[in-house]
């Protein structure tokens, strides 16, 4: 048995209380826990105080004024099967259904997915393993095992829902004792494996807002197995809106998602290929993952038809 480290626990009724708890160093929010508790068992996080979102009532999907609002604690299974989501944002529904396994989809939350820690073959490992290799830059160490001569940490952004949410123009609602802040998904992530987001530690992700629009988005996830696995390459492609360009978001190849645009699907796939510089953060060869970016973008675009 792999035990959890010990911690104190609270489940406040109010977002402001949660925010107040989270402002204290050593506090950590827990939503579905499907990634956090694994990381805690691996001693990647040893929070002194876990603050649960479960009594904050952040569940459900509502539509108001041309915006679909999904509560952060809504499970991925609930998001995927919600009729509005399935009709208006099918790529988000598809993305939710590719996360890990169906059982995890019924536990993990949309908010948790957006805040999924960046991942690396040398980071997401048990404590003893990391001690044997020598701790890495992202946790306890001084060297990045992926790029020992590099400039930082290259752990990859791997949240399955992010590329689709980005292209649907989603915004994320954060609440703290200081009020509510809206961030575009497209502005949320930074290309730094360690400081991969700019969200304050006392901010609670409470909802995701999606504008009702006619965007047609396709989602693809490349992985070894059709269950359990995280993405090796993650893409979402948006067909042109009016006379606009084709657009793609590529993830799991860098610490933040990459956005590219082009006039046609072929150029889009080529642009995505050029923009992607995957490193050996995953098992398959990085050169292969780079080639797969082109293939996956082309296939996602092809599935959307000519886009007009």
């Amino acid at each position, binding site marked *: 048995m792999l035990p959890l480290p010990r911690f*104190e626990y*609270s489940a406040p009724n109010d977002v402001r209380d949660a925010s107040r708890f989270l402002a204290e160093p050593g506090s950590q929010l827990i939503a579905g*826990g499907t990634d956090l*508790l694994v990381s805690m068992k691996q001693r990647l996080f040893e929070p002194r105080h876990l603050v649960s979102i479960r*009594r904050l009532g952040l569940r459900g999907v509502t539509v108001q004024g041309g915006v679909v609002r999904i509560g952060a604690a809504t499970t991925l299974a609930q998001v995927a099967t919600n009729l509005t989501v399935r009709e208006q944002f099918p790529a988000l529904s598809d993305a939710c259904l590719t996360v890990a*396994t*169906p059982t995890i989809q019924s*536990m993990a939350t949309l908010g948790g997915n957006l805040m999924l820690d960046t991942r690396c073959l040398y980071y997401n490992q048990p404590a003893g393993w990391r001690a044997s290799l020598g701790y890495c830059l992202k946790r306890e160490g001084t060297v990045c095992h992926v790029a020992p001569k590099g400039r930082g940490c290259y752990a990859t952004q791997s949240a399955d829902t992010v590329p689709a949410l980005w292209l649907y123009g989603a915004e994320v609602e954060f609440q703290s004792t200081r009020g509510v802040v809206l961030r575009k998904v497209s502005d949320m992530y930074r290309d730094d494996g360690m400081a991969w987001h700019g969200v304050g530690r006392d901010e609670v992700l409470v909802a995701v807002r999606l504008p009702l629009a006619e965007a047609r988005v396709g989602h693809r996830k490349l992985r070894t197995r059709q269950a359990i696995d995280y993405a090796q390459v993650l893409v979402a492609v948006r067909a042109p809106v009016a006379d606009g360009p084709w657009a793609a978001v590529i993830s799991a190849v860098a610490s933040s998602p990459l956005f590219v645009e082009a006039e046609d699907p072929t150029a889009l796939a080529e642009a995505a290929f050029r923009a992607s510089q995957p490193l050996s953060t995953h098992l398959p060869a990085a050169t292969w993952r780079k080639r797969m970016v082109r293939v996956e973008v082309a296939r996602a675009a092809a599935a959307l038809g000519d886009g007009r």
Partner: protein
Amino acid sequence: MSEFESPAPELGPGRAPDGPAGDEVIVNIDVNGERVRRLCSASRTLLDFLREDLRLTGSKHGCDVGDCGACTVLVDGVPRLSCITLAVEVEGAVRTIEGCGPAEAPIIAAFDTHVASQCGYCTPGIILCLSHLYTETPCPDDTAIRRALGSNICRCTGYTKILAAARQVAAANGATHTDEPE
């Protein structure tokens, strides 16, 4: 919404109501139709709560990090990985393999008939996952069956006999359910 929605965590001994509930908590949940109340560490997983505190050992430690499904239990009928669920976080009625009843009887019988269980270590988790599947979709097609089984690793059977058992249950449900599932 069930009656168990969002219970407030009971405070551990000597804890102030406005601070953290403490590293010891009282878990007060319904397991297999019985109300249980135990003081335990906040870091107690549901799996250890079931196995150690309640001696319900049908749910298994497989990988302990949510990859294999051997620890699967139902909470309000929905599968959960009890190895990465905090006991204190459980909202709803827990059902383990020990609490299986008429809903699971046909699945268990089909697994027995088809010898869909070899070593049996993964089987309780699979039975519970399938129980959820048939509740949602009484006559699932092959795609739905495979999708559900994607949550559980079986290392013995090559899934062939598990699929055969699952199809048999689906077919039997088809004979009794005239309503086509959506």
